[in-house]
């Protein structure tokens, strides 16, 4: 394994193009949460030509719907949700300048194609490690769609948020390569 690469959004094309599948990343700075219902609304805004609730250029979106924070906590448990449910919305967001996505599980071919075209990267965090991941989040506030509850868009500040590059902008796929390596026929 290579050494850990530190990254802070907004990400440039150059930042993205030096990442390869299997790279271990430490994210620091601001990322935004969005899952199923928020994606639907974001794409509706794009279709109408309206402004998005945050600057998406160079941004990283985290697919998560946290548990409510207990009093005194920044956020509740906050592990990644399954990414393929966002696939149909993703190319439209990438075309607006989204550079990174964090989730769990693999992506569909239309997303991988759009990632190559728009120069973007997909990271995976450990699904089901929500209590651990909460410790990497230092601030959390709702910036849009408060009515969606856990599905609202939150602005998160993160410190040493640990992810792995699962799909890079060259078409690399860690899921395919990893499974092929350990498969026993």
């Amino acid at each position, binding site marked *: *394994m290579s050494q850990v690469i530190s990254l802070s959004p907004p990400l440039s094309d150059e930042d993205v193009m030096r990442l390869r599948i*299997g790279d271990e990343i430490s994210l620091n700075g601001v990322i935004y949460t969005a899952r199923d*219902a928020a994606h639907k609304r974001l794409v509706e805004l794009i279709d109408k030509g309206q402004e998005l609730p945050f600057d998406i250029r160079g941004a990283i979106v985290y697919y*998560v*719907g*946290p*548990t*409510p*924070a*207990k009093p005194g906590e920044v956020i*509740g*448990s*906050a*592990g990644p*949700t*399954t990414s*393929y449910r966002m696939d149909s919305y993703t190319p439209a967001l990438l075309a607006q300048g989204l550079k990174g996505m964090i989730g*769990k*599980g*693999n992506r569909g071919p239309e997303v991988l194609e759009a990632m190559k075209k728009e120069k973007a990267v997909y990271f*995976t965090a*450990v*699904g*089901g*490690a*929500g*209590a*651990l*991941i*909460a*410790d990497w989040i230092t601030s959390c506030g709702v910036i849009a769609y408060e009515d969606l*509850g*856990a599905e609202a868009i939150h602005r998160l500040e993160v410190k040493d948020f640990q992810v*792995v590059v*699962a799909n890079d902008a060259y078409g690399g796929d*860690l*899921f395919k*390569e*990893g*499974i*092929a*390596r*350990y*498969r*026993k*026929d």
Partner: protein
Amino acid sequence: MRTIQLSEVTDRVRKLCQQANSELGDDVINALRKAREVEESPTGRRILDQILENARIAKDRTAPLCQDTGFAVFFAELGTEVVLEGGGTLKDAINRGVAQGYKEGFLRKSIVSDPLNRVNTGDNTPAVVHLTQVPGGRLTLTFAPKGGGSENMSRLAMLKPADGLEGVKNFVVETVEKAGANPCPPIVVGVGIGGTFDYSAYLAKKALLRRLDSRNPDPFYAKLEEELLELVNRTGVGPQGLGGTTTALGVLVEAHPCHIASLPVAVNMQCHSARHMSASF
């Protein structure tokens, strides 16, 4: 006859929701530790370390293991000599406990009132309650919060009787391979064979309540469980689907008599956060 107050049921359910969501059984922890020792992939070992660390943090802080605190699924065994008192049904008492427990425990409310209009019910009700009658004077409730990621990867097939044992094995392995990274491996695989269309799915879910260090009491199915575990772990899916030798922590099979024309097989997928906890009254 023995009288149990429904208010007592509500109170215990309230506590069960919070505890079961923050604590894994010792059988699951042991299986994860064992997997950490034998996993061949370095990335896989790092993921298993994070999963074990997460379990430690969640238990210490009574924090949810996963942000998906699930659909509240209950298996209730009601003794024939039990009288429930205090108004309403057992299901009403359980739903009151779920609403209180998910609110007080800061657990995520993940249920929408209608599958197509999708408005959140706000309190994680209604629960799914499987009620069976058993001899005696006790009531036992098992709570198994079920996450969406793994539930979505579950499948059911109405095989032909001629497909037999090989057909069942192929369907289970194919389901695990198709699911890949999505159900949060290492998974637990619940398999229901036989019964009817609906009953096989019930058996698959019920199988997930068994301890991972248990085997089906029928030697034929005990052997099948071991064979399926080996086959599933040869797929290479591995921890989080990034490749490795630990795809499942266990395969649990339940079988039931079925129709001469049928061979139903249901596979209920469970993530590594294999949460379930019981309370007896």
